[in-house]
C-alpha cells in the first residue's frame, strides 16, 4: 500500500471540499466572511467539476488506501448532489426555537456551520472510496464530529442541548462498537486492507475457520450495530425521534440522509469481504460462507423489525419531525432488505458458481441486484427526504393566529405538529404540492421515484435463490416473506404520509404559515422537485448508474466485463 501523488489526484474532489471548508472557517474568523453557504456551494460545485463522470463499468483504480470504481463513484456523486441540496436547505434554515423569542431571525448559514458541513461531506465521500479499515474509520469520524458541532450550533435551548448530547453519546458508543468490529476483522485478516482481509476470509485455512466461527459473528454483529446507528435502524434507532425533534429542520435533513449513506457503505464493504473479486474463479472458504450466512440472516431480521417498528411508531406521532424520524427508521429497514438480499444472493452464488451455461444461470447472475436496489433506493429516499425538510425549512414558522391586518403580530412559533400545516394548500400551494409529491414518493406511489426504489427492492428480494421452490424455512421463503413484509409496510406508511397530505389539503386553519425561511431552502425544495419529476419520467437515468455501482460493489460480472458473459447478458436485455 503506497500513497503517491496519484492518490492525491484521485482525492481532488474531497480536497476541494476541505479547502472550501477551511476558507469558510478561517474567512469567518479573520476576514469577516459572512456568506458561508455560498462558499459551501462553490466548494461543492468545484468538487463536482473535479469528480468528473462515473468510471466505466468494471474499471477500478486502486491507489493506496482508496479505490475509485463504479460504487465509490456513485456514492461520491450521491454525496455531492445531496450535499448541494442540503447546503441550500441549511442556508435557508432560519430556524428559531420557540423558547428564544425576540426580534429578527437567527442568522442563516453561518460560516462555522458551512465549514463543518463541508468537512462532513468530505468524510462521507472518503468513506465511499476507502478500501482500508483505518481510512474507513477516519471517514466515519469525519462524519460524526461535524454532526455534533452542527447540532450544537443550531439550537441552544434545553431541547437542543438534549438532542446534541444524546446524539453525541450514542454516536461515541456506535463508533467504539464499530472500532471493535474493525479490530476483529484485523485479527482475522492480519491487515487493515479490506482486500487482504477478504483474501484471508475467503481462503480455506482450517485455523482461520476455527477462529472465524467464534469471531466472525461478533465482528459482523458489531459492524452491523455501528452501521445501524448511522442508518437509524433497530436496535440503534431510538435516538432519532428525540434528536430530530430537538433540532432544526436543516439539521434533521442532514441527519436523516447522509449518515444513512455511510451506513450503507459500511455494510457493503463488510459484505464485499466474502465475495470473490472480479476475474477470480473458485469457491469461497467456509469462513466466508459463515460470514455471508450470518450477515444475511441478521440483516433480514433487522430489516423486518426496523420497517415495522418505524412505521408503527410513526402512525401515532403528531409531531412532524418525530414522525419523519420514525419514517426515516422505516426507510432504514427497506435499505437493509437490499443488503440482506445482496448477502443472500452472494451466498447462493458461492454455492453455485456461475458458468453461464443455462439460461437460468445467466438471469440469476444478472439478478444479483440487492446492492443495486439499495443504492437506487437511497438516492430516491435522499431526494424526497431532503425535499420534505427543505420545504419545512422554507416554511419556517407559523403564527398561532392568522392576522393579515396591521398592528402587533403575535409571536411566531416553530412548525412542530402535523396540524401546523393545516390548510397549506391555500396559503402556500407550491410548497404544499411539493411536499405532497415528496411524501407520495416516500410512500412508494407509482410512478414516483420511491416506487422505482421499492420495485427494485421487491424484485431483488423475490429473485433470491429463485430456481428453488418456496419451501418453509428455505432461503427463498425468507425473502418472499421479507418482500411481503416490505410491501405491507409500504401500505402502513401510506397512512401517516397521507395524514400530512390530508392536513395540507383537507383542513382549513386560522394559523398562518409564514414562509419566513430563507429563499435558499425554497430553491432547494424546487431542485428536489425537479429531480423527483426527472426520475419519475426517466427512471433509467438513475437505474443505469445504480445498477453499475451495485455490480461493482458485489463484484458481479456486468455486460462490459467479459465478452462471453456480455453476450448472454445482452440476450436477456434485448428480449
Amino acid at each position, binding site marked *: 500500500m503506497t500513497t503517491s501523488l496519484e492518490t492525491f489526484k484521485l482525492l481532488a474532489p474531497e480536497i476541494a471540499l476541505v479547502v472550501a471548508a477551511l476558507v469558510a472557517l478561517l474567512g469567518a474568523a479573520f476576514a469577516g466572511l459572512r456568506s458561508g453557504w455560498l462558499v459551501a456551494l462553490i466548494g461543492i460545485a468545484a468538487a463536482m467539476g473535479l469528480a468528473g463522470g462515473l468510471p466505466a463499468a468494471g474499471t477500478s483504480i486502486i491507489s493506496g488506501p482508496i479505490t475509485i470504481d463504479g460504487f465509490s463513484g456513485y456514492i461520491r456523486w450521491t454525496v455531492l448532489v445531496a450535499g448541494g441540496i442540503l447546503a441550500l436547505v441549511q442556508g435557508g434554515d432560519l430556524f428559531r426555537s420557540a423558547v428564544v423569542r425576540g426580534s429578527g431571525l437567527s442568522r442563516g448559514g453561518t460560516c462555522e456551520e458551512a465549514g463543518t458541513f463541508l468537512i462532513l461531506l468530505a468524510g462521507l465521500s472518503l468513506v465511499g472510496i476507502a478500501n482500508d479499515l483505518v481510512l474507513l474509520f477516519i471517514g466515519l469520524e469525519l462524519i460524526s464530529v461535524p454532526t455534533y458541532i452542527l447540532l450544537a450550533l443550531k439550537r441552544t435551548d434545553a431541547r437542543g442541548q438534549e438532542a446534541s448530547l444524546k446524539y453525541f453519546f450514542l454516536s461515541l458508543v456506535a463508533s467504539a462498537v464499530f472500532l471493535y468490529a474493525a479490530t476483529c476483522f484485523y485479527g482475522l485478516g492480519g491487515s487493515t486492507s479490506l482486500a487482504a482481509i477478504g483474501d484471508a476470509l475467503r481462503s480455506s485455512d482450517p485455523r482461520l475457520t476455527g477462529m472465524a466461527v467464534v469471531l466472525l459473528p461478533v465482528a459482523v454483529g458489531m459492524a452491523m450495530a455501528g452501521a445501524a446507528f448511522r442508518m437509524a435502524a433497530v436496535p440503534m434507532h431510538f435516538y432519532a425521534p428525540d434528536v430530530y425533534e430537538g433540532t432544526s429542520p436543516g439539521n434533521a435533513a442532514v441527519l436523516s440522509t447522509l449518515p444513512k449513506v455511510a451506513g450503507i457503505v459500511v455494510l457493503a464493504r463488510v459484505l464485499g469481504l466474502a465475495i470473490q473479486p472480479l476475474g477470480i474463479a473458485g469457491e469461497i472458504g467456509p469462513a466466508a460462507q459463515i460470514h455471508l450466512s450470518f450477515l444475511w440472516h441478521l440483516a433480514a431480521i433487522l430489516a423486518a423489525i426496523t420497517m415495522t417498528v418505524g412505521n408503527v411508531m410513526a402512525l401515532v406521532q403528531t409531531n412532524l419531525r418525530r414522525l419523519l424520524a420514525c419514517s426515516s427508521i422505516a426507510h432504514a429497514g427497506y435499505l437493509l432488505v437490499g443488503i440482506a438480499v445482496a448477502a443472500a444472493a452472494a451466498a447462493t452464488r458461492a454455492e453455485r458458481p456461475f458458468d453461464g451455461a443455462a439460461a437460468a444461470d445467466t438471469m440469476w447472475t444478472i439478478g444479483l441486484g440487492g446492492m443495486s436496489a439499495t443504492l437506487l433506493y437511497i438516492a430516491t429516499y435522499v431526494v424526497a427526504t431532503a425535499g420534505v425538510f427543505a420545504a419545512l425549512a422554507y416554511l419556517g414558522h407559523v403564527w398561532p393566529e392568522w392576522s393579515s391586518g396591521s398592528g402587533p403580530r403575535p409571536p411566531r412559533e416553530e412548525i412542530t405538529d402535523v396540524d401546523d400545516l393545516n390548510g397549506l394548500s391555500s396559503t402556500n400551494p407550491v410548497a404544499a404540492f411539493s411536499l405532497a409529491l415528496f411524501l407520495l414518493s416516500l410512500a412508494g406511489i407509482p410512478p414516483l421515484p420511491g416506487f*422505482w426504489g421499492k420495485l427494485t427492492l421487491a424484485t431483488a428480494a423475490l429473485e433470491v435463490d429463485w430456481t428453488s421452490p418456496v419451501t418453509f424455512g428455505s432461503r427463498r421463503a425468507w425473502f418472499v416473506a421479507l418482500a411481503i413484509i416490505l410491501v405491507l409496510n409500504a401500505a402502513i406508511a401510506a397512512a401517516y404520509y397521507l395524514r400530512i397530505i390530508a392536513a395540507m389539503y383537507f383542513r382549513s386553519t386560522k394559523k398562518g404559515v409564514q414562509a419566513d425561511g430563507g429563499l435558499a431552502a425554497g430553491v432547494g425544495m424546487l431542485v428536489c422537485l425537479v429531480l423527483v419529476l426527472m426520475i419519475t419520467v426517466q427512471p433509467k437515468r438513475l437505474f443505469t448508474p445504480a445498477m453499475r455501482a451495485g455490480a461493482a460493489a458485489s463484484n458481479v460480472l456486468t455486460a462490459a466485463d467479459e465478452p462471453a458473459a456480455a453476450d448472454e447478458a445482452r440476450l436477456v436485455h434485448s428480449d
Partner: protein
Amino acid sequence: MNGLSPANHLLLVILMPLVGAVVAWLMGSRGQQAVRQSAAFTAVATLVAAGWLVIRFLTRPAGLSALEPFAVIEVPWLVEGMFDIRLSLGLDGLSIWLFGLSALLSLTAVLVSWDAIKEKPVGFYGLLLLLEAAMLGVFAARDIILFYVFFEFTLVPLFFLIGIWGHDERRKAAVKFFVYTLAGSVLSFLGLLAIVLWHASQTGTITFDIAGLTAGLQAHPLPMTAAGGWLQWLVFLALFAGFAVKVPIVPFHTWLPLAHVEAPTGGSVDLAGVLLKIGIYGFLRFSLPMLPEASAAAAPWLVGLGVFGILYGALVALVQTDLKRLIAYSSVSHMGYIVLGLFALEPLALEGANLQLINHGLSSAGLFALVGMIYERFHTRSIANLGGIAAKAPWLTVLFMLFTFSSIGLPGLNGFVGEFMILAGSFQRAWAGVAESFFQPYLFMAVSAVVGVVLGAWYMLWAVERVFFGPSREPPRSHSTDGHGSHAHHHGAHDDVDRCDLRWHEAAALLPLAVFVVWIGIMPQAFLSPAAPAIEQSARAAREAFADRMNLPPQDHAAGSSIAATASSLPYSPSSP
C-alpha cells in the same frame, strides 16, 4: 381522417384529459364557469375520440384476427438490468367496452358536478380529468408494470376528490379508501413481479408484456404442488388480495360504503362506474389466463363469496336509511353477481359477467348521479325525510326508475341480459355436476343468487316507493333559520319546487347512459360478440383446469355463443345424461 393511425388515435384519447386538466388550470383565473366549460369540452372531446376509436375497433379490417390487439403502441420506458418496462398500450375485446365506459362516465362525472362544486373548481375538474386519463390507461396498458402504475395512480386523484370535496367524514373516508386499497394492491404487485420472474426463469427471456407472459405461463404453468412450493396458489392469493379489495368481494368491502357516501357525486360516479370494474378486469386479464389451475381450484370458494356478497349486500341495503348508502350496498350485491358469473367458469356466465360490468357501470353511475341531484335539491339523503318527489320532478323520477329497473334486471333493459346470462350459466354449471350427486353446492349457490334477485327488486323498489311516491315531504332545510319569517321560507321552498326537475346539464349527463341502458337491453348481441372471443381465450385454460379437477367430461362450447343458442339448450346441459 383515416390518416390517424389507430395507435396514435389511442394515444390521443389518453393524452386529451391530461391536456384538458392543464387547460382547466389555465382557465382558473376566469372563474368557475370557464373552468367547468373547459372541463366539459375536454370530456366531450375525449368521449367523441374514444367512441370513434371503439367504432374503429369494431369495424377493423376483417383480416385481423378477433384476438389481435388493436392500436398497439410500444415505447421503451425503463430497459435496464433485468427490467424491460415499456409504455405499451393497446385495446382488445376484454378492454374495449370498459375503455369506452371510462370515457362516457367521465363526461357524466363532469356534468353532475356542474352546480355542486363551487369551491376550488380548478382542482376538482383537474383531478377528475387526471382520473379519467388513469382509468383509460389502466384498460389500455399492455405492460404489467404500466398496468400497475395506472392501477395505483387511480387512487391519487380520487383520494383528493373525496378528501377535499366530500361530505362530513371525508378525511377518514379518503384515507381509509386509499390505505385499504393500497394494502391489497401492493400484494398484487408482488404477485405480478413473481409472474415475471417465473416466466423469466422458465423461458430465459425477461418480458413484462402481458400477452407474452400469458402465453409463457400457459406453456410453463406455475407449480401447484407441495414440491413446487404451491407457487401458483401464492401468486393467486397475492393477486386476489388487490383485486378482491378493488371489486370489492364481500369480506373486503368495508371501505366502499364509507367512500361512496362521503365522496362528491362526480367521484362516486367514477368509483362505482369504473374503478370497481378494474378488480374484475384484473381477474380476467391476469388470474384466469395466467393462473388457471389455482383459479379453478379457488373457483368454488369465490362463487361462494360472490353469492354471499349478493345476499349480504342486498340484506344490508334493505335496512339502510340513507339513499346513497343503499345504492352503495346494492353495488356490493351486484358485484357479487359478477364474481359469481366470472368463477362459474361457464362461457355464458363469463360473457354475462363481462356485459354486467358495463351494465352495472351504467346503472350505478346513473343512480349515484341521481342521488347527488336529489341531495342538491333537498339537502338530505335520508329516505325518511324524502317523499313525493315524483310530483315535483317527474323527469328525474322517470330516469331514476329506468336505472332502478336496469339495476334489478327488468326484461328489456340491459341488467336483465347480464343477470340472466350469469344465472343461466351458473345453472349450467350446477347441472353439469348433478349427475354425480343430487345435492351439490353449485345448485345451492345458483338458487341463492336467484333469491338475491328478488331481494334486489325488493330493496330498490321499496326505496323508490318511499322516496318518489307517497306524501310529499318537506325535508328539514339546512338554511331554514335565516330569520326572514315563514313567508320567505315558503317562497324559497317554492323556488326549489319550480326548478326541481332536471336541468340541461343533468339531462345531458344522464341521457347517454339511459340510451345505452335501453340499447344494450334490446340489442345485447352487438355488445356481446366483440368481447366474446377475448373472454373465451382468457378463460379457456381455467375452464379446462376446472373440468379436469371435477372430472367433468370436456365441454365444447363454440366461442361467442349467442344467448338464444345456449339458453335454448339450458335445461338439457350437454353433460347431463
